[in-house]
């Protein structure tokens, strides 16, 4: 049988210019189908941010884009005591993430590995509260913990004649409220992460001499880490912007940063200052998140090197 093999290399394909390749990319079905949502994001998400950014460079008490550009607002933030609010927000958010992780890990482990067919109903029970507005749930806690007439204090008073005073208006209660509200955001990504841990790798680690703690450190944690990180990050970013917990359950002397922003936009009627605090908060959170994500050498952290 005769075989025909062309030994010469195929002719080189013409390379498109940069402009041509951008044009090609724009005409791809992927980009075309994404256009509506891109436009929506530009108008509804990027647009308002640009407006807030613009306002942050306008003089005090301006209500439209007319006036001299200025950085006075930022100078004001740095010279006044706003850093206390920032510290409260970031401190509470960090504590919230830590508490949520401590609670989530065992629960996630159960959901992913232990509960079996009960996992779905339990998950549903955890999701149902999300259908109720966060504020309504917080006021539920408020009623429970209210001084004298609250359900908790009232019950202890009635049953044991004990006056517990109130647990409200403290930073501990604020933290409790935040953990309560943001737990699902840590829990579900962590569950997803843990469900990615193959059983046979856990078996293999045990078979190779790893004890329970070593299995956790060497196999479960590294494999579940992406889920845990995403959950932590989501919780952190949301918790930095939290406002109701501190307002409903917290003391009057703790003013978180979102409270300060709300104050400027409503009561103080100083949109430019409110805008600049917002931009400041966004910038710090953004830098922190990028820094942590970039610097976090997972390999080192988990002893892989």
């Amino acid at each position, binding site marked *: 049988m005769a075989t025909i093999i062309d030994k010469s290399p195929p002719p080189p394909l013409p390379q498109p210019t940069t402009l041509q390749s951008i044009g090609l990319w724009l005409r791809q079905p992927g980009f075309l189908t994404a256009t509506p949502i891109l436009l929506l994001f530009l108008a509804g998400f990027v647009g308002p941010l640009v407006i807030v950014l613009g306002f942050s460079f306008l003089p005090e008490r301006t209500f439209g884009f007319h006036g001299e550009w200025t950085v006075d607002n930022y100078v004001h933030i740095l010279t006044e005591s706003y850093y206390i609010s920032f510290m409260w927000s970031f401190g509470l958010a960090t504590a919230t993430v830590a508490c949520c992780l401590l609670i989530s890990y065992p629960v996630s482990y159960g959901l992913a590995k232990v509960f079996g067919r009960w996992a779905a109903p339990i998950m549903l029970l955890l999701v149902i509260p999300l259908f109720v507005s966060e504020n309504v749930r917080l006021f539920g806690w408020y009623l429970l913990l209210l001084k004298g007439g609250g359900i908790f204090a009232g019950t202890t008073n009635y049953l044991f004649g004990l006056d517990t005073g109130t647990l409200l208006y403290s930073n501990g209660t604020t933290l409790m409220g935040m953990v309560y509200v943001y737990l699902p955001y840590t829990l579900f990504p962590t569950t997803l992460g843990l469900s990615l841990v*193959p059983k*046979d*790798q856990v*078996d*293999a*680690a*045990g*078979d*190779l*001499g*790893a*004890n329970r703690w*070593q299995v956790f450190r*060497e*196999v479960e944690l*590294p*494999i579940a880490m992406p889920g845990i990180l995403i959950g932590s990050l989501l919780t952190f970013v949301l918790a930095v912007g939290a406002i109701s917990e501190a307002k409903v359950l917290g003391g009057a002397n703790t003013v978180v940063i979102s409270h300060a922003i709300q104050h400027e936009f409503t009561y103080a009627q100083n949109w430019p200052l409110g805008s600049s605090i917002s931009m400041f908060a966004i910038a710090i959170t953004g830098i922190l998140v990028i820094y942590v994500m970039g610097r976090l050498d997972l390999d080192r952290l988990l002893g*892989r090197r």
Partner: protein
Amino acid sequence: MGDVAPILEIKNITKQFGKLLAVNNVSLDVIDGEFFTIVGPSGSGKTTLLRMLAGLEKPTGGDIILRGSRVNDVPANKRPTCMVFQSLALFNHRTVGQNIEFSLKMRGVSRADRRIRAMELMKTVRLPEDFYGKGVTKCSGGERQRVALARALASDPDIMFFDEPLSAIDYQLRKHLEVELKDLHRETGKTFMYITHSLEEAMVMSDRIGIMQAGHLIQVGTPDEIYTRPLNKFVSEFMGEVNTLSIRRTSPGKFECDELGAQLTGPADAGGSETGYLVIRPESMRFLSDPSEAENHVKGTLFNEYAMGSRVQYHVRAGGYMLVVEKLREQAYQGSIDDEVLIGWDVKDSVLVSD
């Protein structure tokens, strides 16, 4: 083999999952240094048995005795045994080196010593040195196999367990790795306990084979014993393509076969049962030119022929049965399809088995 102390004694071991009896009263002694293979179809309980031996499952009854001491309640991480998993269960988030060193790291061996040992093991399993820092996900199927082997060998276990590690590998590489595994067994001198659903694979590698069916260990023997004297119809058919003729005994050594509509001669020393099966391997069947050439002969029609490389297989319709006949290529039948042929075999090539 009776005078050698067993390294592993399995005594009436049972495992029940709810209502399912996965392993049912299995007893077995494994000799130090042997290559023992358990063969059975999926669902026969062989993986469960192996997992109990490795310490990954707890038996619901019976004892596992390793070097004279009962290890039923010893967890996997405290047993001097190691397992190569069906999925290999390599740590995909680690490099080849880290996978191999895992058991040493768990024992607190220093990094430098771990590396020396890993290099040694990579040489043993024929992995190039520069694979040390490579991610396991970037390795090919055969390379991953070697990593899993080296990882299991690292802690110098008394017994190595293998849970069908070659089942997902293509035919040629599997044949190659079977040979390598047998060589590795020889080089290390360790006790290997292997499970597979392929008797062919078991035949190539094992010193002894145990056959499992529905939770029971039904026959144990050397590959040769299993091949020539299968215990029952299940074992004989598990061995590959055989002729299994349903027969009724009329007098010692004489049988009536309804399927073929013929009187057959067979082994005389067959137990008490009146009915059973006469098993004849395809390669024991011959084309006859005269009935006197063999002790048994059957008339049939050549239905089809299949070239199988060095051999040719024929299907011959005889009565209600399709006989399988296999010949070396040089001894191929000279004729054509639909020929009336005479097939025969000798009594010594037939085995009588029960249901």
